[in-house]
């Protein structure tokens, strides 16, 4: 699972039982949210949704959590493709699912 380091704002990938404790964000999907591609492409800081990333990380860091679940790591445009893939691999992936090690941590782009 991909987690954001709450201090360095870097992405880290964890597999299986190695995943550390993490905090998670609950919010409504609004305009100009930072997607995974935006995040990786370094476009995040210019976006309106960036304050959610930094705010959440700052709060988590203050509370002593090193990681938060990275937000919305799916390109909006290709969401359907990804979901199709996810569906077809579902039986194979359901084992992973239970261990919480899915390669992308958010496949919803809307609420």
């Amino acid at each position, binding site marked *: 699972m991909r987690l954001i380091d709450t201090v360095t704002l870097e992405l880290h990938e964890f597999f299986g039982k190695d995943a550390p404790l993490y905090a*998670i964000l*609950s*919010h409504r999907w609004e305009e100009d949210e930072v997607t995974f591609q935006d995040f990786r492409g370094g476009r995040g800081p210019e976006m309106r949704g960036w304050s959610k990333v930094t705010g959440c990380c700052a709060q988590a860091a203050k509370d002593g*959590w090193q990681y938060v679940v990275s937000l919305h790591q799916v390109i909006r445009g290709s969401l359907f493709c990804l*979901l199709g893939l996810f569906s077809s691999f579902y039986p194979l992936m359901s084992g992973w699912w239970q261990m919480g090690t899915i390669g992308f941590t*958010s496949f919803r782009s809307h*609420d």
Partner: protein
Amino acid sequence: MFGWYRQAEMCYAYLSDVPSATGDHAEANSAFRCSKWFTRGWTLQELLAPLWVQFYDVNWNEFGTKESLEFSIKSVTGITYLFNYDKASVAQKMSWASKRETTRPEDQAYCLMGLFDIHMPLLYGEGQKAFLRLQREILSKTEDESILAWGGIESRSTDGLLANTPALFGGCGDVQCAIFDAGRPPPIMTNKGLRLELLIVTATKGSAVQGLHGPIYLAPLNCTRSSVTIGRSFLALCLRSPGQDDYERLGIRAQEFPVVNLAKAKSERRTIYIKQHHQLQTVWFDKGYYARKILFRISPLRSLGFQVSEKFLRSAGGGAYWDLSNSEGPTFAYFLLMEDQIATAALLLARNSTDNVVATVAVTPSRGRVDVGIEKGNKSLQESIQAFRSVRMLEIDRDDRVPRHLVDGRPLSVAISKQIHTGGQIYVVDFKIGG
């Protein structure tokens, strides 16, 4: 998704429409209680799954936790089991989702999978069918019959066995599991509909409830409303039977039923099949009117040479007559006072003595159904109506026209709808020839 929230050490709920952490968040019109965060489908599981939730205003100032805001959250969301959602009945969980919205229709179902511990593939594009699929998955996993207890006898556009949308569970916040007949076998989905073994009683309220479509049956479910306190009251499915072991769900009713002992239950249970869709088109009437007129607009059939050869009327409880003053066709006029009362009108339209069209309408004060049958040969209306009762389980979509074919192969369909007519509103049975 649900799993990540369940396993998270902490969930930060960021409410961007709460401008300030200060102020009384418990107040009726506070920004917190009015926040859109409470109106979205996905945020339901994000509230229920994590062990710890902290709430933040737009500037990331904390203003409370799930515990400290418990009272307000419960009152805004209607969730009685805020810290142990798994203790709630299926209908109760659905009721929590009943007022929430999602951008995509499929998400109305997908955002509830975690709450019911259901894993199913996501198929965006399936639309509202996703919610039916979710309910079928739930049915295959639990003995909780409250999933069938949605809506009410008066609820509108609710035809079918399973609800089309979580909104129909809106009144189910107090529906709980209870034991009426504990030992019955679990329901099974078949190609004839949902197979159930239930104890069935004929509805006794009112005198004669016999209409063209037969009596109304009640099948008590293993659930009750906590607000109903008199005696052993259970929620019962109201059913009608178009033929043999086929049944259709008409609604739900709370009623007192005598205790059944196990041996009696075992010997008297009946195996029935309930289809998702009804075979007949239904119209919901405006409330508050006891008398109504329904015009059979038969002009398209007349132009093909059909003539009215027989008329049939039956009214259990109220009164009914044919009004022949309209040149477009006979008008069925009636009044009914009780929901259990049914009036029926049927027309036999004949051509060449071997080609008959039978159009029927059955009405209660709140709704009407229409069907049309094609009969070959020289049958009387009575005989045709008898034949009607046991035939045709067509899968048609709700609100669709009832489709048939004339003897010569031409498509004929019929529907009932409200129309504004000279001198006010009128319900019209209209016939359409051709595709």
